[in-house]
């Protein structure tokens, strides 16, 4: 039996050195007894006491990094068997590299369980330390706290408080050890007792007021609170003294709310109601009127999900009007037509056809984005005939106020938007159609159709045809109109 004496209860380095050497010699866990200076020695230890540095052995011990991190925390556990369990796991890891994830390995289970307790303890200390201000020193505020963690975790939590409370001086007292920060150094000292902690802090009344006011008595759930904030922590939490009364009064307070008669409206309300009276029924006398009115459109159900109405874009004096189907995901977010992938292809084609997009009026037959949510994405859905026909109200207004010479209708939805009935693209493609009011129309495909073509050669041919259609529209306009 080897007896190893570590320099302190949380001496990770000492444990690591000794464990490395012992494992290197192949000393089985049952032959090692771990103890700390000042602790109880094993009376039956045969090999006598050794300091870690006195041990000889091969240092070539390999462990996963995860194990080292875990061991660093687990030495802070209060269970006297922690060093032995850690050594057992280290030993097992030399036979089986995957012992950590082996559900049948007892040492791995114990160490993981202990690690979980430590991490919970650390987390609770991060949460439940309450500082009290004790004064100022060299222009810096000085704070102090008393805390009683389950395990010896002050060394693990110190750096967190340093990163968080860099701009103030603080000390955290615990029965095992104390941590202090003065703006430059994080230092640790022997344990302390509670008497060194100041009795109160002026802010605590504000904090208790907040705590009592943010609690909603109608939602009382005591067991949920207790599972997260066990009563063992209460004695150091200034707000905890309120809890019994808050619980006691909650049933009555809720009952009063539920039985109270409705009260009369405050007089302020009537004063405000005029403030919001809107001129909803305003007449539409210009493109601007139409745009404003369309932004509140709820003529068909699509508006309930779409972010906003995407009205047409371009100068009111445009001679060329280009109509697409409906906005897509990008357009719906950006608030502009043709900015998504199809919009980029569209821009490219316009460039090749020598059309300046800023001189054209670009719009859609349907002004809201229709989609079905699928996980994190929105899948485009074709608008149905009823929706297209409803939205014609806006398209007709745009056509009326723009009065273009040429309309390029891209895809069947755009054609339905113009004609008010189903028209086959095939029948109009390649021809110049004259509408009732004299406007001439060129029918072509929608750019998103080009994006969907899987066959590359076919896609190139179709794209060239699309550019041709745009080019024909261009050639029908005066030189400076596009």
């Amino acid at each position, binding site marked *: 039996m080897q007896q190893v004496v570590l320099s302190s209860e949380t001496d990770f380095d000492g444990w690591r050195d000794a464990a490395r050497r012992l494992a290197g010699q192949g000393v089985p866990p049952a032959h090692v007894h771990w103890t700390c200076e000042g602790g109880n020695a094993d009376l039956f230890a045969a090999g006598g006491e050794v300091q870690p540095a006195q041990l000889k052995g091969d240092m070539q011990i390999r462990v996963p990094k995860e194990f080292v991190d875990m061991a660093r925390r687990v030495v802070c556990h209060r269970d006297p068997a922690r060093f032995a369990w850690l050594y057992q796991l280290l030993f097992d890891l030399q036979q089986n590299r995957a012992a950590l994830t082996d559900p049948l390995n007892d040492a791995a289970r114990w160490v993981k369980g202990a690690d979980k307790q430590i991490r919970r303890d650390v987390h609770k200390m991060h949460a439940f330390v309450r500082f009290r201000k004790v004064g100022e020193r060299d222009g810096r505020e000085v704070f102090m706290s008393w805390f009683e963690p389950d395990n010896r975790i002050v060394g693990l939590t110190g750096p967190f408080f340093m990163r968080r409370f860099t701009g103030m001086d603080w000390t955290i007292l615990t029965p095992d050890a104390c941590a202090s920060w003065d703006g430059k150094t994080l230092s640790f000292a022997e344990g302390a007792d509670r008497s060194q902690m100041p009795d109160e802090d002026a802010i605590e009344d504000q904090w208790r007021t*907040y705590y009592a*006011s943010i*609690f909603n008595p109608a939602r009382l759930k005591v067991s949920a609170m207790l599972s997260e904030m066990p009563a063992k922590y209460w004695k150091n939490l200034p707000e905890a003294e309120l809890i019994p009364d*808050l619980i006691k009064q909650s049933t009555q307070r809720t009952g009063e*709310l539920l*039985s*109270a008669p409705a009260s009369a409206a405050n007089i302020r309300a009537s004063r405000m109601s005029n403030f919001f009276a809107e001129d909803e029924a305003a007449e539409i006398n210009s493109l601007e009127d139409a745009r404003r009115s369309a932004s*509140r459109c709820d003529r068909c159900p699509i508006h309930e999900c779409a972010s906003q109405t995407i009205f047409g874009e371009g100068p009111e004096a445009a001679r060329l009007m280009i109509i697409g189907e409906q906005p897509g995901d990008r357009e719906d*977010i950006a*608030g502009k037509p043709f900015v998504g992938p199809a919009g980029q292809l569209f821009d490219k084609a316009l460039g090749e056809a020598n059309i300046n997009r800023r001189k054209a009026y670009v719009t859609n037959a349907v002004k809201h984005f229709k989609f079905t949510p699928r996980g994190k994405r929105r899948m485009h859905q074709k608008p149905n005939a009823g929706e297209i026909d409803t939205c014609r109200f806006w398209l007709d207004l745009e056509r009326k106020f723009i009065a273009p010479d040429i309309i390029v209708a891209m895809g069947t939805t755009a054609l339905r938007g113009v004609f008010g009935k189903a028209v086959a693209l095939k029948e109009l493609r390649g021809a110049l159609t004259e509408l009732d009011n004299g406007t001439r129309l060129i029918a072509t495909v929608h750019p998103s159709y080009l994006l969907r073509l899987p066959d590359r050669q076919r896609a190139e041919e179709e794209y060239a045809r699309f550019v041709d259609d745009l080019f024909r529209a261009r050639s029908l306009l005066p030189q400076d109109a596009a």
Partner: protein
Amino acid sequence: MGKRSLIDRLAILADAAKYDASCASSGSAKRNSLSTNGIGSTEGMGICHAYAPDGRCISLLKILMTNFCIYDCKYCISRVSSNVERARFSVDEIVQLTLDFYKRNYIEGLFLSSGIIRSSNYTMEQMVEVARKLRVEHQFGGYIHLKSIPEADPALIEQAGLHADRLSINIELPREASLKSYAPEKSGAVIRSAMANVRNGIESRQTDRKERGKARPPRFIPGGQSTQMIVGADTSSDKDIITTSATLYSGYKLRRVYYSAFSPIQDSSGDLPLIKPPLMREHRLYQADWLMRFYGFEKDEIFEARGDGMLDLDLDPKLAWALERRERFPVDVNRASREELLRVPGFGAKSVAKILAARRHTRLRLSHIARIVRSLKICRDFIEAADWHPARTLDLAGLREKFVPQPQQLQLQLL
């Protein structure tokens, strides 16, 4: 009437904030004070510093800047027609309270919301000013969550995003029609386009980051955006609610949708149900939401067998779904894919990861599963292991009754 003391106003303005469910302080960028010599840090995971007796954690100082409001939303205690006491904090008071509380480790940061006074822009400007002062003048590194005013100028939302960790815009009610009748001044379209604007802000910086290489643009709400929906004030079904959530998650990359069981308010307007908050319904909605976000369920699957569009209050939605789709079970824990395992009632994402890791070592037996999951009670009838097969239990007509909580327990509580 003289001005109320700070502590009295704190009581009023915290009370007015207690109905808002969201309080998370996680998911932001890592940040500490070592380089600024200021106060505050965020380390990815938020910390709950206290728990109220309602079981909800207190991680942020959640207050209203003011509970004066020109709107008249019927479900809201601060609506203009309510006779509740009114109060207002100044920008500096909020900054001071936040710092005082933070330095004592009471809180993780600030969650500021407000009634609308004067105009949406004025109110939003004041809120942005609080965040700016904390960040710029006081080098505050803690968490800041601002409840944006959807009607405010997009430029203000943009500024808010530069200082805040998270922005939220409440959708409030799941259907446009409910919003019209309960919150006459609010518009779903305005709310959604404000959310779109925030998504745009987040994404435009993501592309910037790629293009500019190492020169990082200023962070824009690293904690993302979230929203809240009130449950039980109107007649919307659970399916309406989850449908709206699915729409919002897919459209605006929301981190969270919070469900807030409608809770009776003081000075109620008479248009609303006087009910105890439907907490179990709220809980089931969170579970359904979870199924969509982490377990690969589509919203329609969850409601497949629920004719009335309401979730089963007795059973969690995954168990309810599995009982309707028994032909998909038992699932073999030694062979099934991750996706299949995720659909087993009683298995969480963590249990599934452990099962996948453990089966590399060994053929899993029921006793192994018992060590991994919290309880075998729910999952055992739906799985197959090396030494276990549920035999014919899946065919039993009364299988559901096995899982439904016993009604006697409730009666005992009433005594």
